[in-house]
């Protein structure tokens, strides 16, 4: 699969969206799952994150979407130190981030339409204002006829597309996707990647975690590789 490239996306951005310095993360008393991570993601960059199972990809992504805080080191998102964020700051920061979870994490009691609209709704949008945008994006990801369906009735691929639609719905500045094309066919994978590239072209910073090393290599985008909690390479 080849990913459409855009010269704008590879131009050197001016400011860092993510800055990690000497970051470590552990859960409880367990050994560190992330160790001495130094990472800078400039604004408008597009990175792949690879690594074997258990290498710490999900933990690193959790740090990036503010579901966890580093147990040591310094993490800055959008120029603000994460450890200094108050409970009032977190929601506003999270609204600038769109996340595609590997396990989708859709809300089963909401329709596909309402799932996709969730970030807009939480940000205070009114249904009549966002209805057209949500419908358009769902149509774009191939869910035009499934807008009123509930997640349990969707196929794996449909769920994944819906999860992606939800993540990008509010035009986040930082898009984090964990295996976003793992459940879709090749054509749809290309189509979804094109969506990420399009959003990246419009200014979003994108991080995509994948097991598919070939996909990462062929993309021509920088690849970050995690190995047993350490960031081995930033190309």
């Amino acid at each position, binding site marked *: 699969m080849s990913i459409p490239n855009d010269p704008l996306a590879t131009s050197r951005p001016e400011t860092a969206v993510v800055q990690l310095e000497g970051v470590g993360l552990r859960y409880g008393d367990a050994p560190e799952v992330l160790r001495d991570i130094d990472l800078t993601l400039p604004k408008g960059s597009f990175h792949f994150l690879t690594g074997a199972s258990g290498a710490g990809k999900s933990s690193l992504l959790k740090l990036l979407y503010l579901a966890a805080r580093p147990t040591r080191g310094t993490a800055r998102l959008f120029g603000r130190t994460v450890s200094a964020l108050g409970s009032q700051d977190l929601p506003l920061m999270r609204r600038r981030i769109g996340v595609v979870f590997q396990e989708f994490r859709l809300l089963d009691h909401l*329709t596909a339409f309402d799932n996709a609209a969730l*970030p807009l709704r*939480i*940000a205070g949008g009114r249904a009549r204002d966002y*209805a057209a945008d949500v419908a358009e*994006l769902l149509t774009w990801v191939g869910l035009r006829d499934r807008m009123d369906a509930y997640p349990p009735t969707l196929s794996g691929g449909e769920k994944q597309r819906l999860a992606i639609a939800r993540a990008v719905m509010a*035009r986040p500045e930082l898009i984090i996707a964990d295996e976003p094309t793992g459940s879709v066919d090749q054509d749809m994978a290309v189509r979804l990647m094109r969506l990420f590239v399009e959003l990246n072209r419009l200014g979003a910073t994108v991080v995509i975690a994948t097991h598919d090393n070939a996909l990462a290599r062929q993309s021509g985008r920088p690849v970050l590789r995690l190995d047993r909690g350490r960031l081995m390479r930033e190309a």
Partner: protein
Amino acid sequence: MRIPRLSLDLPWMRGSGRRPGPLLPLEDARSAALIFVMAALAFLACMAAMGASAGGRAAEGWARDLRGEATVQVRPRADETPAAAAARAAETLGGVPGVEEAAVLERERAEALLRPWLGEAILEDLPIPQLVTVRLTEAAPADARALNRALAEAGLDAVVDDHGRWLADVERAARVAGLIALMVFLLTAAAAGAAVVFATRAGLEARRDVIEILSLSGATDRTVAGVFQRRFALAAGLAGLYGAVAAAGVAALMRLAGGSDGFTPALPLAWSDLLLVSPCPLVAASLGAVAARWTTLRLLKGMA
């Protein structure tokens, strides 16, 4: 917030009139259990309120009766028959301001009062004191001192019993009954609040996935708390309505069965007592909202 057009223009979608679904699932077994428990508590609270009102009315009636009457025991002088002394006392007391009527209690009536306690046999030989019953005006009743003064000025030796001791007992009993009703109400309110707190905690735990997604999508704690607050306010309000209607129904049946006494002389239910249940749904909803909001914010703070 709008995203730029990507590729399609779908004007037919505009103004589609979609209503967003609830952020928490509607169907929930815990809600049914909570509504049942809260309805039962609301029922008890309403019954306590109506019971307190009726009990208060009974006490007030008894107190009014006691306040409106006095009994005078006349001791005749050596040169005067008991009947004459009693008649003179009645005449004297009838002229005292604040007295509506004063009448000698005939021996037959006094015996009739004593018969249930003493039986028939000894009544004839029993020296029954000469009593004068005094009915006092409702607006400005004469007190025992005024009655005593009037009797003394008329040269009568008499003892006035204004039922003050009984009145104090009745008033004290009424206060205690009122306090007990208030305690029952507060206890049921506290139990209802606790039920909401437990249900909210269970709801938060059961819907942790929903809460996490809401939080990661940028929902503030207040937004999440608002979701739970609305849900539990609605459930509690509904429970309050069920409890109030049930209590009003039971009270209405008691009132109908009780006839003119209300229910019993000790619990004279009035139709107006049924109105006391009307604030119950609102009070229950407010209680549910406050308890759910407080619990959610507290738990979310712990999760952060």
